[in-house]
């Protein structure tokens, strides 16, 4: 080896060590000050703490779904319940989350509540930035190969993003993060639909969900079936919920020719091939005259979440009593 080469190798090794130390330090600062405050990270920690506290390893009522569920179900009003929903979650993530809870964590679930909203099967929930938003947390219940095949990212990239979440997100180090309160998975939404530009909000949300998107994506349907099958195999009582949205949101869907009846006919005929043993709770139009229950056109605020959760609980109790009577 020439003198120049030896000199280069020596300096390169020393340089790389210093670079690695600096980078790992910054990464740790990011993990402590940014990553640990992210919703996905906090929800995972809360979930882990919750299941550790369970004496009988049973969650009576488990709620899965997107931000409609994340904001709309407050477990404080239903005993032994947990809100496992997360932002932009499609049935792809729901399936793997449920699988982890049942098979890896060995938690028994009595009632599973699954979302059946108009945007639930939209391909928007499968775009690269959604599948899988919070990628860094998915390695808790998916293999790298599974994440790679769904997110169209390479395994090395997924590995790097999982272990070095600061990569590409350095700007968050300079942002002040105010963590939103999370209670048993429920995220408190203190916004008000009454104080924002409602027309603009509705346009934006409906555009986001449906413009240039497939209304019913095949991949979501596939994982929908897998989720229902998994629930059936584990003897879970399946309840589908159509969550409340504002009147304006529904009117906008109708204006754009999105046919609700046709949409649900397709979903349910697909579902009925797997099971007919389920219940549907339809609250889509329940809050049309209660704009004060909404944080925006399709997310409930904390007041709306309380009302909806109590309604669901009442429904459950009534059914349980009816069943007892029978």
């Amino acid at each position: 080896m020439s003198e120049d080469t030896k000199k280069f190798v020596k300096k390169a090794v020393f340089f790389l060590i210093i670079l690695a130390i600096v980078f790992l330090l910054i990464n740790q600062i990011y993990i402590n000050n940014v990553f640990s405050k992210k919703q996905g990270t906090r929800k995972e920690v809360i979930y882990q703490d919750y299941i550790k506290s369970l004496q009988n390893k049973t969650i009576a009522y488990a709620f899965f779904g997107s931000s409609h569920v994340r904001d709309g179900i407050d477990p404080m009003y239903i005993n032994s319940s947990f809100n496992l929903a997360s932002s932009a979650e499609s049935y792809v993530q729901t399936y793997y989350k449920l699988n982890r809870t049942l098979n890896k964590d060995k938690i028994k679930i009595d009632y599973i509540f699954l979302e059946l909203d108009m945007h639930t099967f939209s391909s928007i929930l499968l775009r690269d930035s959604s599948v899988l938003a919070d990628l860094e947390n998915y390695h808790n219940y998916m293999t790298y190969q599974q994440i790679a095949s769904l997110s169209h990212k390479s395994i090395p990239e997924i590995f790097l993003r999982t272990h070095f979440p600061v990569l590409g997100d350095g700007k968050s180090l300079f942002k002040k993060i105010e963590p939103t309160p999370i209670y048993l998975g429920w995220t408190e939404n203190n916004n008000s639909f009454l104080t924002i530009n409602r027309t603009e909000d509705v346009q934006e949300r409906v555009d986001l969900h449906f413009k240039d998107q497939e209304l019913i994506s095949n991949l979501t349907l596939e994982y929908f079936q897998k989720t229902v099958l998994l629930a059936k195999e584990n003897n879970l009582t399946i309840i589908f919920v159509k969550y409340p949205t504002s009147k304006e949101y529904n009117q906008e869907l109708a204006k754009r020719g999105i046919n609700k009846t046709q949409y649900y006919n397709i979903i349910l005929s697909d579902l009925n091939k797997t099971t007919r043993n389920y219940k549907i709770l339809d609250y889509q139009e329940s809050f049309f005259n209660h704009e004060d229950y909404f944080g925006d056109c399709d997310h409930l605020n904390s007041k709306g979440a309380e009302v909806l959760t109590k309604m669901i609980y009442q429904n459950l109790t009534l059914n349980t009593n009816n069943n007892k009577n029978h």
Partner: protein
Amino acid sequence: MSFIPVYILILVALILIDYTLAILIDKNQGKKRTLFLVLSIISTCLVLFIFKYFNFFNANFTELATLIHWNYSISSLSLILPIGLSFHTFQSLSYVIEVFLGRQKPEKNLGIYSLYVMFYPQLVAGPIERPQNLLHQFYEHHKFDYAQVISGLRLMLWGFFKKVVIADRLAVLVNTVYNDPTSHSGFPLILATVFFAFQIYCDFSGYTDIARGAARIMGFRLMKNFDNPYFSKSISEFWNRWHISLSSWFRDYLYTPLIGKRLSMKRLYFSLIIVFLVSGIWHGANWTFAIWGLLHGGYLVISILTQNARNKVADKTGLSKHPLLHNILKIVIIFILACLGWVFFRANTVTDAFYILTHLFTNFKASLFNTNLGLTYIEVFLGLSSIVFMILVEYFIAKKSVETLIDKRALWIRWIIYILLIVAILLFGVFNNTKFIYFQF
């Protein structure tokens, strides 16, 4: 644009054809010599035409045929553009032409010639090298040179910074606006156009720096492809500083033959228009590129026609007595002219381009606070500050060499600079959009 393994056969075929024809050119005289040159040009252009331009011309002929009620029914080809085709074909063409002109001896070693065409750092997107610069380097003995390796790595690092931190971040806003221009008007269109000017510069010059840096590590010297083009004070200066390898290629192999020996102003203007039209079309099979090329050709013609008038205006207004102010004004005007051209270069269709140009100042005040542009305010600020940082660095590199700026500093200062750059790339880089713009050409 794609890498499809079987397409390597196209590269092999072109290498064999030009290798053989160059030797034949050298061995022959007169008409035969010219014939072999023409064969080389035809074979190269035919491959380019089939893969890159056939569908474009076919679609236009079909439309024209429909208009004149002519029964024309040749279907389009389902071919993907082989990676780097536009670049290595021009590189091998320049070799054959230089042999024909007697300025280069034909390379007898097929392996060396193949390496000249396929030299990996510059195969995909240039710089388009001349045989006089590159071929002899393959015969030189390259030993490990510490200073050269450091210099090459540093150049690569700078290239990655420009690409991943600046270009790819600006691309988010540019794509949001340019992929749906009719949803925007006023300030977002101006911001997206200015951002694109820096996106394409940082993307392409970033790639070139990575290519040159990789070659330098191995002891090879590739030509400079950019020289602070946005500091140009005239359009002709812009084209001496932007994509230098391509503009000099067109100057030497298209413009000079077109001009001929008897220069007339009409012939000069005609040649400029043709050269820039061809240059535009070289970039892509779309009318937007053709118009971009024509626009720059037009700029040059107008600049020649108005030279005297502009000098008189500068004298009369007293600008000529204030060279700094005069130069700043020229730089700003050339930048604006370049940006107007970039509108066509980036727009997906001619209609989109005209929409953008006619709505740059529509609802300007109201559009200033449009937040729906794909980037948050912090990211816009990051984009702008990185542009300023890049301009300052490249300005000082042009004034003083990198050796003066960095190499003479203490080791710990140099390492801090390198670590800061690498950390900036890792923290602020946008890793979702890593394709280079010029790879598609």
